[in-house]
């Protein structure tokens, strides 16, 4: 068990790192989600040959796909950082890395796994475009659920 004197110092370092990185990762995932939604709309418009005002205003598919991929990569890195610092913070307070019934931790890991799958699929060139966009919308759904489940 850590001594009482030890707690305040580690609490500050890891908690700050945890909170800042998780907040930033959510923000970046929000950008990824917005670009994914824009991608899906633009893709549907081009496929169905409706090239009106919305088509003209939205950016090109290539740009949206790249921005989505980059923001997921960045968000994933930040989320990993948040999870690691969260584990250390938890250990310093509770003496254990993993609380068995800690919903927050479980949700974060699930989220991390989903984004890992998306990145893997994209990097190995198995999926691209519409399906990646759909997956990133799904991932954001899980993110919102995790917030609702743990922020009561």
């Amino acid at each position: 068990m850590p001594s009482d004197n030890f707690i305040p110092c580690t609490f500050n370092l890891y908690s700050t790192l945890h909170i800042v990185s998780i907040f930033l990762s959510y923000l970046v995932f929000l950008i990824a989600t917005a670009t994914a939604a824009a991608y899906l709309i633009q893709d549907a418009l081009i496929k169905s040959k409706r090239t009106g005002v919305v088509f003209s205003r939205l950016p090109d598919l290539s740009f949206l796909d790249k921005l989505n991929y980059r923001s997921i990569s960045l968000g994933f890195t930040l989320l990993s950082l948040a999870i690691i610092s969260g584990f250390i913070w938890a250990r310093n307070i509770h003496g254990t890395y993993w609380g068995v019934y800690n919903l927050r931790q479980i949700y974060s890991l699930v989220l991390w796994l989903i984004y890992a799958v998306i990145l893997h699929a994209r990097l190995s060139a198995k999926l691209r475009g519409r399906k990646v966009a759909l997956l990133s919308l799904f991932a954001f759904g899980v993110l919102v659920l995790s917030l609702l489940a743990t922020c009561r």
Partner: protein
Amino acid sequence: MNLVVIGINHKTAPVKIREKFSFSPKQILEVNQILKEKSALAENLILSTCNRMEIYAVETRGVDCIGPIKEFLSRFHNLGLTDYQNIFYVYRDKEAVEHLFKVTAGLDSMIIGEMEISGQVKKAYQDARESHSTGKILNRLFEKAFNNAKKIRTDTFIGRGAVSVSSAAIRLAKKILGELGDKVVLIIGAGIIGEQLAMYLKKNGVKDILVANRTLEKAKILTEKFSATIVTFDEFRNRLTDVDIVITSTGAPHCILRKEDILELMPRRKQKPLFIIDLAVPRDVEEEVNKIDNVYLYNIDDLQKIIEQNISLRKNELDTCRRIIAGSLESFMGWWAKEKKHDA
């Protein structure tokens, strides 16, 4: 001090008459000067494009200039005016100003909202300034016309949306693939529209063009035209893995690209987006291909429909354009009234 415009355009005269009255770019400077002297005008400017020939003039006080201008035109071009009385339109003062604003903004063009005219008017204005045939009024008028055209271009949809097959295809290509600088195009079959489109793509900076045709001679002509690479007809399927845009225009009676072909192709392409433009009738590419992820198929009818939509979209903007013109008109007429008072 009256402002007058006299001219002919694509609505009043067919090309075989318009060409008789047109001035070559080399003549313009000289003609502006001669016209000013011979017709005793205070200011004048000639606008001569393939669709119109117009003369904008400011009369010297108390002298009607329509007669002298017509006489000048007839002498210069060696034409008897009696045959051509009905093709000229004449607008004065406010109407003339409004006409110029419309012309410069592309509202009087054959394809409404076409913006090439704006540059042509600018060139005509520069030429006239160079030949010292314009003065205070025309200078102010044309500057106002350019501002007005710019405002219409930025505030309305009048000049937006492609209105030709080639430009519609390019726009789509850019919306799917982004910048075209590193993209490769494969043309299968050597049809005329395919050729035009390829030229246009080249102008838009695509990296490379490959041509596959059953007869090599035809392909060779194309390759010479825009330094393309020849691919044999049997080989083109292998090249599909690394091209970004495919244009088909073969005379084949059946599909040359089927859904199975493309489904099998996409993993090898690592799901890289593919834009297929099928210009052939009967069609070269199976319609179902469009349902595959990251593949976008447009045929000639799809492109035509886009053009029609865009033209009607442009027409919907006419009311807004008229309002902008009314504003510019009022502002110019206000300035001019003050000038007249000042001169008097």
